[in-house]
């Protein structure tokens, strides 16, 4: 009984004490914010009235005052202030609402939508989206934090990168070959394999050697081309008349060389001429020469024996070419 009385006294004492310790909070809204909802410690306490002033009795202690005015379905204007209410001191807060901003619900809805988008893109193989998924699951952005999921998505990234690198390596990309060697060594994106790692490293070494050779050949070709260009410039500088005159003046002033006086087996110029000609030109040259031999007589003296031989030769040549064409078919 004694215990019961003591407890009752305590409760009554406390209630009286509480009522006695409430403090006043005066909130001043701006006239255009009429209707804005007022929350104290997240509990709705009322709305901003037309005259803008609201007086509340609140218990002392840490206090969060929030004022929200909905702009549309997703946006609201917002005010928040925190302070520690004291029993013996009324507080006056002047509300100044922010510019319109997303409501918490809207923000959450949007985050969910973004997550879905990223998820779909990641499923379709978008590497950037996959990386986002890793980050989301690691940090719990738009989804509950999940390290297993984060690792799974990282594995998919590695596998995708490995496939792409393999394609490049198979196409001869040296850096990709080295990349594949590393992947097989560490098992990144592929199943680890020392043999495969060695194979790709050897491929990369060989490809590097070949590339070096190609580069050397390219440089040599470029050097040769520069030399040829220099030679060509020198050739171009030689006067045509000079060459012509030199040809018309027999060597050392001798006047003996003439056709059929010397053996026709070889002529020095023939050797040079054949070798400095291009293959196409050589073939054409032979054809042209055959034609040239009798062309003048055929044009100027069509009844001459040379003209007849020329016509026969052309006809026989044409027949030969025709039979070759038929045979080729």
């Amino acid at each position, binding site marked *: 009984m004694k215990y019961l009385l003591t407890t009752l006294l305590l409760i009554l004492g406390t209630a009286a004490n509480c009522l006695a310790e409430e403090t006043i909070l005066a909130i001043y809204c701006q006239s255009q914010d009429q209707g804005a909802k007022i929350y104290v410690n997240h509990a709705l306490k009322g709305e901003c009235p037309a005259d803008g002033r609201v007086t509340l009795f609140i218990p002392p202690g840490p206090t969060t005052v929030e004022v929200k005015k909905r702009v549309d379905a997703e946006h609201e204007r917002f005010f928040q202030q925190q302070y520690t209410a004291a029993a013996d001191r009324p507080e006056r807060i002047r509300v100044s609402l922010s510019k319109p901003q997303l409501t918490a619900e809207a923000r959450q809805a949007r985050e969910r939508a973004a997550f879905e988008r990223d998820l779909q893109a990641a499923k379709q193989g978008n590497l950037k989206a996959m990386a986002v998924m890793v980050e989301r699951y690691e940090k719990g952005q738009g989804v509950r934090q999940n390290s297993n999921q984060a690792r799974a998505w990282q594995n998919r990234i590695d596998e995708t990168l490995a496939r792409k690198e393999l394609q490049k390596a198979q196409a001869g990309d040296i850096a990709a070959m080295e990349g594949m060697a590393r992947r097989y060594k560490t098992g990144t994106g592929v199943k680890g394999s020392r043999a495969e790692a060695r194979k790709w490293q050897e491929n990369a070494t060989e490809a590097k050697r070949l590339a070096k050779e190609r580069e050397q050949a390219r440089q040599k070709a470029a050097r*040769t081309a520069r030399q040829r260009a220099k*030679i060509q410039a*020198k*050739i171009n500088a*030689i006067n*045509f008349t000079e*060459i*012509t005159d*030199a*040809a018309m003046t*027999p*060597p050392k002033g*001798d*006047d*003996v060389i*003439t*056709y*059929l*006086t*010397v*053996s*026709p*087996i*070889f*002529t*020095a*110029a*023939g*050797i*040079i*001429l*054949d*070798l*400095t*000609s*291009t*293959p196409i*030109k050589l073939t*054409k040259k032979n054809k*042209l*020469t*055959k*034609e*040239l*031999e*009798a*062309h*003048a*007589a055929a*044009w*100027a*003296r069509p*009844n*001459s*024996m040379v003209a*007849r*031989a020329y016509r*026969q*030769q*052309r006809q026989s040549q044409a027949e030969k070419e025709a039979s070759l064409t038929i045979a080729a078919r």
Partner: protein
Amino acid sequence: MRWLPLAALLLLLSLAGCGLRQGAAPPEPFPLSLSQEQGQDLQAQLTGVPGPLAQAIGAEIQIRLASAEDSQAPGRAVPAKKILTELLSHSGQPLLQPGDEFAELRQLIDPGQAEPTAPFARALASYLLEPDFACRQPIFHAYFNRRYQKGEQSVCSEKIPLLLASRLEGVSPIWLDPGQEIREVHLLFAGQGEKMASRFGHVALRLLVCPAGKDDADSCASNLYNHIVLGFMAHVDEFELNTIKALSGDYAAHLFALPFMDAYRGYAIEEFRELHSVPLKLNSEQRQLFVRQLSEIHWRFAGDYNFFSRNCATLLQDVLRALLPGYKDEKRLKKNFRRPDTFFAAIRQTPLVAGKKLVPPERAEEEGYYFASTKPFYAKALAVVAGAMSKAPFRDLNSYLARPPSQRLAAILADPAYVELLSRDPYQLEAQLLLEELALTRSERRLQAQGSRYLHDFDFTADQLQQARLSQQERLFFNDCFLAPIRQFTSPVPRLPAIPAETTQLPALAPKPDCQAQRGGGVQLTDILGRVNAEGQEQWLRVLAATQIHNETMKNIITLQELRHEPL
């Protein structure tokens, strides 16, 4: 030439040595003796030999049999030809001695050798013992037939080979049937040229080769592309002709074979000279034998070429005098003509040739006995071209050819009306093409001159190659495609002891690698020569410049040909 004094010294020493030995040596032993069996064997092999000759040889065998006891008989393994040769070379019988005619004929194939007995014995032994002697050595075969009155004249039906040296195809053998494929043999005379060497013309022989399967006169006459010229020429085994050597007989002379159209191009186009071709009057049998004999000279003859005294005309006269029936009896040809023009002028008047074929020139040209210089043809083409261009930048052939090829083409293309005319008027186009073709022949000569000068000064020593640091592949290419042809050019012309019977007996011609196909042939050669011969660079550049001119001229021709609608 460094070896020459040493060789001379060795020769003198050996001669001195011979003289000393001769003084101390015992008299020569009696020649080879024969055993009874060997004598019988030899006589058995000589059946069919004409009577007097058989008797003479039989007597010689008897003498040897008689002396068999005094000296050793040869072993049975000694071939009959060797025994017979030895026997004949020691015979004193007049019938078995070489006469003047033999000596004269021998000059056609083996000049310069004074002592005729041993060659006579060898030739007669071959004549008597070798069944194909008529094909291998027709000159001596005919001679022995005449001398020993063996009735048969032409007993050989084989084809004859000739080594044809063509401008385009190089050197290659051809085989001809003198009875079926050669219709006529002509004496070919190239008229006077402007140069010293051509001032008196040139003379050679021309074989009228018939087309396959045809032997009528017309088909054979118009088969010019297969006619062959046989002419005596100097083999100049260096890159520039040395006048002193040419005048002192230091170059070798051979009877070369070349396509007639090469000769036509050389004379009628390149040198603007005219050609006269007069048939030798020979019946079929005479012609066949004569052609075989020419083939023998072609393969065997190697003499000295002297521009004035042993030239194309004198060497050919030697051949005709010895081999052409009736030549020796012709009074107008008793003189030995040193000039081709005087020789031709004399022989065309004789009945040995069908001289009337040469006149009138118009008909002769139609029938293939006269080939005019092409100079007036090109001059006509120039007039046609100049008359059609709106502003022709040349006056005559020389001023046309003096312009660089690129300028010539530019002048044409800058005249749209003229280009339009060329594309619709074949006659006009062909005239324009002719001028460019003439320029092409000139550019080849230009290249010859520059190339010869370059090679003349080229140092072929190994040092050059060493310094150039050629790769293995480059060395092989340079050897196969440059040095090997040069070596062949400077090598003596191979000579054979008789007409070859088959291709395997022909002299080995250097294999011709496909240098063009080897990694861009000419380009590679240009690069290598650019490194190999540093001192000759200036002249090499001139060669390349001349090559470029040649190439550009060819490009002009190809460009013009593209305007052609119908073949001429």
